[in-house]
C-alpha cells in the first residue's frame, strides 16, 4: 500500500489527481475501522492531516470557512458561539477520543445517513467546498448527499472546507440512540431559524437513504409564522403548530427497519424530536438569546 503524506494543498491535490483511487484519511475513525476489519484494502492512503488549509477555520466576509479537517473537539471549543447547531451535533459524536480525531470532512466523505454533522449542515444552509487540480467548486449541502454512502465529490477531488453563514436565529440538534455515548443515531434532527430571511431550515438523519431536509415542514412553519405575524410579535408558539410541524418532519422520512430500530419507531422519534426542537428554538427566539 502506498502512503502519501502531502504537506501543502497543492501537493495534496496533485497527489489526488495522480492517484484518484487513493483514500483520503483525516481522523481515521471511519477509514481505520474498515482497515482493521480487513473490509477495505485501499491501494493507497492520502494523509490530509498535515495540510494546514484543511485544519484551520476562519471568517471571511461574515461567513465561516471551516477546514474539512478541523476536529469535533475544536468545533465544540472554538465555534460553539458562531455555530451552535453544529457544535451541539459535534458534542454527541462517538466518545471524547473519537471527537478528538474525527472531522466534519470525514463525516462528509463517509456520507453515512447516520452522520451527525449532516442535519446541522443542512439546517444551516452550508456549502461544501471541493477542490481538484482543475479548480474549486462549491456544492450546497442538500445537493451533496447522493445515495447511501455516496456523495458529490469526484474521484480527483478533495473535500476542502465547509462554508456557511452562521444562522441568524436559534439552532437545535437532537438525536436518539441506544446509549448516551457512542450511539449511532436511530434518528437525528437539526433545526435552524433564520429570522433575517424569514425561513426555517431542517436536516434529518438516519431516517432515509441520505441525510435530507424536510422541505414541506420548513415551508409550512415559515408560512404559519409569517401569516400569524409571529416573527415580529415573538408571541408564544401554538402547541398545535409545533405538533403539526413534527408530523410534517416525520412525513419526510423514509426509514428502514434494522437492528437499531424499526421504521415506525424512527419516525415516531423524529416527530417528537422535531416538536421539541422547534419549541426550544422558539423559546430562545422569544427571549432573543439566539438572535
Amino acid at each position: 500500500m502506498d502512503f502519501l503524506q502531502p504537506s501543502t494543498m497543492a501537493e495534496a491535490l496533485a497527489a489526488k489527481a495522480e492517484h484518484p483511487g487513493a483514500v483520503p484519511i483525516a481522523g481515521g475513525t471511519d477509514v481505520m475501522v474498515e482497515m482493521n476489519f480487513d473490509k477495505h484494502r485501499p491501494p493507497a492512503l492520502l494523509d490530509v492531516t498535515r495540510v494546514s488549509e484543511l485544519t484551520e477555520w476562519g471568517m471571511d466576509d461574515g461567513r465561516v470557512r471551516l477546514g474539512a479537517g478541523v476536529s469535533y473537539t475544536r468545533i465544540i471549543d472554538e465555534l460553539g458561539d458562531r455555530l451552535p447547531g453544529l457544535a451541539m451535533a459535534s458534542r454527541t459524536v462517538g466518545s471524547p477520543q473519537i471527537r478528538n480525531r474525527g472531522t466534519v470532512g470525514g463525516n462528509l466523505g463517509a456520507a453515512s445517513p447516520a452522520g451527525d454533522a449532516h442535519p446541522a449542515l443542512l439546517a444551516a444552509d452550508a456549502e461544501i467546498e471541493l477542490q481538484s487540480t482543475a479548480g474549486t467548486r462549491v456544492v450546497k449541502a442538500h445537493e451533496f448527499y447522493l445515495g447511501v454512502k455516496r456523495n458529490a465529490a469526484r474521484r480527483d477531488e478533495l473535500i476542502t472546507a465547509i462554508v456557511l453563514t452562521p444562522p441568524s436565529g436559534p439552532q437545535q440538534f437532537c438525536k436518539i440512540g441506544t446509549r448516551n455515548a457512542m450511539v449511532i443515531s436511530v434518528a437525528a434532527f437539526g433545526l435552524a431559524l433564520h429570522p433575517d430571511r424569514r425561513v426555517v431550515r431542517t436536516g434529518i438523519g438516519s431516517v432515509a437513504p441520505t441525510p435530507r431536509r424536510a422541505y414541506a415542514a420548513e415551508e409550512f412553519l415559515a408560512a404559519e409564522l409569517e401569516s400569524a405575524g409571529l416573527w415580529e410579535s415573538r408571541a408564544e408558539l401554538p402547541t398545535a403548530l409545533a405538533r403539526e410541524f413534527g408530523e410534517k418532519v416525520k412525513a419526510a422520512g423514509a426509514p428502514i427497519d434494522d437492528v437499531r430500530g424499526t421504521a415506525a419507531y424512527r419516525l415516531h422519534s423524529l416527530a417528537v424530536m422535531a416538536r421539541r426542537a422547534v419549541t426550544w428554538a422558539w423559546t430562545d427566539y422569544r427571549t432573543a438569546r439566539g438572535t
Partner: protein
Amino acid sequence: MQLSVNGQSRDLELDNRTTLLDALREHLGLIGSKKGCDHGQCGACTVLLDGRRTNACLVLAVTCAGREVATIEGLAGPDGLHPVQQAFVEHDGFQCGYCTPGQIMSAVGMLEEFERGWPSAVTGEVQPAGLTAPEIRERMSGNLCRCGAYVGILAALTDVASRS
C-alpha cells in the same frame, strides 16, 4: 521511522499499515495499552497523542512521526504513582485490570480537558463548579469496563478532581 514515546525517541521499521497500537505492543514491547476491540469502541488502547486522548487502534503509526505519544508505562514519576493511578488503587477502580491503562490515560486527558474549560454534552450553558458525577460519566464514556468497575472509577476520579 522515529517515534517519540514517553519522551524517548525510538527507531522503528514498520509496514505503513501498522497501527500505533500494534507498533507500541508488538514492536516496542509496551503492552500496557490493550487491544479490546480494535475499532474505537472500548477505549482500552487510549494513549495521549500530543496531549490529546486518542484510540491508538485507529491511528496509523506512520502518521505519528514528529508527535509525542504518552502511554501508561510513562505515567508514574520518580516519586511514585501518578495521582490518577493512586486514586484507582485507593478506590478499587478495577477488577481484572484489562481496561485500566486505557481508563487511566483517558482520565488524565479528561482532567486536562476540563481544566481548559471544554464543555461536554451534559454541560449546560453555565459551566458547573466542578466535575459532577454526570460530567465524569459523560467525559469517560469512551472507556468501557467489562467488569463493571464503574463505581470505583467514578469514586477515584471524583477524588482526584476534588484535590486538584
